């Protein structure tokens, strides 16, 4: 044993001294290894951290650990990050209770959340429509003799104000673009709306004028944007419990057993908020969170320009009184004598780095309280119309309870584009029959005397048996009347239902269809086994299921990490392939140079494995020394990055980082992997030179000219 150790010492000594003797070569080889192991440490630490933070984002927001859906589905399920506007075509699973039972029987499953994904376009908040409706109501009350004169006048003012704004707008467009940019019809309509004739008789008989305004002028105010909303129907209670990163930002959660809608805070800000205010917020974020300056950033300059040119959105909201207040406030703030509020607003929004903070505060403190900042307010009713699978339009009116966000992902569009809705309303919009609907349909059928008739008996059923003669026609009148009555009563009931049926029996959540379900597991390390178990359990229970991991369920986003990991591994592979070749070459050169020395060692009595050991030690020594240095340096770099954090420069990174900054941390595995790779590469690269050295004959030592 001692002898072995001493031999090893000599081998090491020869090897190390050889390395030292050819310092330059050693340094070059070492440098490559150092860079390689540094890359492995930093790279794997980063990717692991992104993986961890992203899985936190995905699992904790919508996907859960596993997503389950019907194996009969045409499309594959993606719950987020899907680029297509359309939701995937999934075959519904019609008995959620059975599905839930089946899933909960699988060992590793902790919770099951029912889900359905869909999207709808919602028309929200045309300012002109709203104002005209208010004016119509006031006019009716005034004509009925109520004392609403002041409110009526103010509203009338507002309408005339709106028309002035629109008319200015139309003129502008004609000036800037072309005479033909606006249709003659619309020009005439605006001209008529401004004309004194329209307003002269307004107080006496407002209805014709109102109708004209509603039909011809309101459509010209294009602020009635369509909202495209993607929504997730779910058991909102179970959702909040299972996805702990969800938090309510404004308002409240949808109470249990109530129908309702929760806006994603991100959607609420980006789509529902007054554009001018949104742009101010973005500028503020740019300056405060990303250290941008208006002077330098073209993006900020663009938003400022849009704010100065698009003051109409605010102008439409101002009635006479508010116009006066705005004029007074803005004149005071700007120190201006300008009386045109539109020009004052444009001037106000023309901000620079020096005055932005002050104007931002002024906007929210002084101006915003007089404006509707959001087109849909918390507490409003939102009418969502959607095409059902079979193609007819289904509409549901829902109470907007509030907004929510996923912690750490507040600014992420990928996590933020989904709004929430109760499962019962979702089913209705999707075209599933709720139990009440099904019962109603049955009632209509019975009252109308409808019954299912086999095709070959249809004639007999319709016209009666021939021998009964004329008696049949007399009898048929009665059911028709009753059917009409039933339909009438149904329509009435449905209208009432729309108002009153904001509640439902929570048991309904359990019964009925879902499109997919999120599964939360107890032990996330056993996901792949659980997926197999789930599919097996589904097959056994007669519910053919497809179960996918959160990575797959999160679509492109989930595969992103796999992609960077692949890129990292490929670059590591390339670097170490290069390192392998270079180390190999260096050792081959060294071996060739040392042929006489190796021959001498052989002649003197060194066995072949002594030489192999010598080269191996040389390669390993370089590997271990520089590999460790690289790993150490890498660990240091990861440490520094951890302290500083990598800022998420864009939204995708924000989502991947699960927040505004990534603070990667080092795990022992990162270092161990790096050192293992270095050792393996060193060992492999000494194989060929080792073989060469072993083939050196001791005759090489004899150099006489014989």
């Amino acid at each position, binding site marked *: 044993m*001692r002898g072995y150790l001493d031999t090893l010492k*000599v081998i090491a000594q*020869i090897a190390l001294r050889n390395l030292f*003797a050819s310092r330059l070569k050693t340094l070059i080889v070492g440098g490559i290894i150092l860079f390689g192991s540094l890359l492995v440490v930093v790279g794997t630490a980063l990717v692991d951290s992104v993986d961890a933070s992203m899985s936190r984002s995905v699992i904790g927001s919508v996907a859960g650990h596993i997503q389950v859906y019907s194996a009969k589905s045409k499309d594959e399920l993606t719950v987020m990050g899907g680029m297509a506007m359309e939701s995937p075509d999934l075959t519904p699973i019609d008995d959620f209770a059975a599905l839930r039972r089946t899933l909960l029987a699988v060992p590793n499953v902790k919770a099951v959340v029912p889900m359905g994904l869909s999207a709808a376009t919602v028309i929200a908040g045309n300012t002109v429509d709203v104002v005209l409706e208010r004016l119509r109501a006031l006019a009716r009350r005034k004509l009925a003799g109520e004392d609403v004169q002041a409110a009526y006048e103010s509203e009338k003012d507002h309408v005339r104000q709106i028309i002035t704004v629109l008319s200015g707008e139309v003129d502008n467009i004609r000036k800037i673009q072309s005479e033909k940019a606006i249709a003659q019809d619309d020009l005439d309509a605006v001209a008529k709306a401004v004309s004194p004739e329209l307003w002269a008789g307004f107080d006496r008989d407002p209805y014709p004028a109102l109708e004209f305004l509603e039909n011809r002028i309101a459509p010209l105010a294009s602020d009635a944007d369509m909202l495209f909303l993607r929504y997730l129907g779910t058991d909102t209670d179970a959702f909040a419990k299972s996805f702990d990163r969800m938090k309510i930002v404004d308002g409240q959660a949808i109470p249990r057993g109530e129908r309702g809608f929760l806006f994603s805070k991100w959607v609420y800000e980006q789509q529902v908020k007054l554009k001018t205010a949104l742009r101010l917020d973005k500028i503020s974020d740019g300056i405060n969170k990303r250290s941008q300056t208006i002077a330098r950033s073209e993006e900020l300059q663009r938003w400022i320009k849009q704010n100065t040119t698009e003051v109409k959105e605010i102008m439409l909201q101002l009635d006479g009184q508010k116009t006066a207040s705005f004029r007074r406030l803005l004149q005071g703030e700007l120190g201006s004598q300008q009386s045109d509020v539109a020009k004052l607003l444009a001037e106000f929004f023309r901000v620079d780095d020096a005055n932005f903070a002050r104007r931002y505060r002024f906007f929210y403190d002084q101006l915003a309280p007089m404006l509707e900042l959001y087109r849909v307010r918390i507490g409003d009713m939102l009418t969502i119309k959607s095409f059902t699978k079979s193609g007819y339009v289904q509409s549901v009116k829902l109470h907007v309870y509030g907004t929510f966000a996923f912690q750490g992902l507040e600014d992420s569009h990928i996590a933020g584009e989904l709004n929430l809705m109760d499962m019962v309303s979702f089913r209705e919009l999707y075209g599933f029959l709720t139990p009440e609907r099904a019962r109603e349909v049955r009632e209509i059928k019975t009252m109308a005397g409808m019954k299912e008739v086999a095709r070959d008996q249809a004639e007999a059923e319709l016209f009666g048996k021939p021998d009964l003669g004329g008696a049949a026609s007399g009898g048929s009148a009665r059911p028709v009347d009753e059917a009409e009555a039933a339909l009438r009563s149904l329509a009435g009931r449905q209208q009432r239902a729309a108002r009153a049926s904001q509640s439902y029996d929570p048991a309904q959540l359990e019964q009925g269809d879902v499109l997919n379900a999120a599964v939360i597991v107890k032990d996330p390390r056993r996901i792949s086994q659980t997926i197999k178990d789930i599919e097996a359990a589904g097959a056994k229970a007669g519910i053919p299921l497809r179960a996918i991991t959160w990575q797959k369920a999160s679509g492109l986003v989930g595969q992103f990490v796999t992609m960077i990991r692949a890129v990292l591994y490929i670059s590591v592979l390339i670097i170490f392939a290069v390192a392998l070749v270079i180390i190999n070459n260096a050792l081959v050169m060294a071996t060739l140079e040392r042929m006489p020395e190796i021959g*001498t060692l052989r*002649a003197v009595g060194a066995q072949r494995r002594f030489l192999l050991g010598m080269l191996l030690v040389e390669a390993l020594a370089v590997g271990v020394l520089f590999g460790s240095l690289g790993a150490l340096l890498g660990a240091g770099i990861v440490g520094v990055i951890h302290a500083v954090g990598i800022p998420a420069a864009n939204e995708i990174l924000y989502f991947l980082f699960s927040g505004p900054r990534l603070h990667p941390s080092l795990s022992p595995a990162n270092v161990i992997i790096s050192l293992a790779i270095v050792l393996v590469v060193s060992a492999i690269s000494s194989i060929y030179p080792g073989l060469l050295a072993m083939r050196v004959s*001791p*005759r090489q030592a*004899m*150099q006489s000219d014989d």
Partner: protein
Amino acid sequence: MNHIVSVNNVSKNYNLGQVVVPALRGVTLDVAEGEFLAIAGPSGSGKTTLLNLVGCVDTPSAGTVTVDGKQTGLLSERNLTRLRLNTIGFIFQSFNLVSVLSVLQNVELPLLLQRTLNARERRERVLALLDRVGIREYSKHRPSELSGGQRQRVAIARALVTRPKLVLADEPTANLDSVTGTNILNLMKELNQSEKTTFIFSTHDARVWAYASAVVRLADGQIQDRVSAEEAVRAGGLPAGRPA
């Protein structure tokens, strides 16, 4: 008399591409223990080939070579190496020291390969031997810091450190000036007499023959004759009728 080396009708051919070059042709030679044998001959006569065969770094194409009772042609590569390590010491024309090791480490190397002595024993033996060859004070130097004569002394010490029965020296004085060469030969001769180690060395230096117990003269891969040192010196070393 015991023969430490027996070469029996040995031929050795080298293949140079398509051409077969005979280096030795039917050589027979016995070397008794304690001899100080010189192998003389011009370049290309087969001196080194013969030494290689005797030194177990090569095996014959035909015939047998027996070293210390072992027929080399029957030994595996491993056992040949072991035989070299334990029975034979080598002294090379260009010294062939390991440049990155110190004098002491160079001499110690064969002992480390043998793995029979502990560190203290090795050190004692190495230092005694360095003392014996007169370079003890240089034990920590690197070979590159020594003169040619000093290096050859290190090489001699390395060859003798395992107390081999046989020392082979390939042109040991060829790279040394005459004074140094003489000193080295004196040292070898001394060791031959005190340690009873058999020495076989190849040389074409006539001055060297005077030290030999016998001179074997080689030409064209064949032994011309085996003569005493005096005869060889008288004859000018080279076989009759074949001037160098």
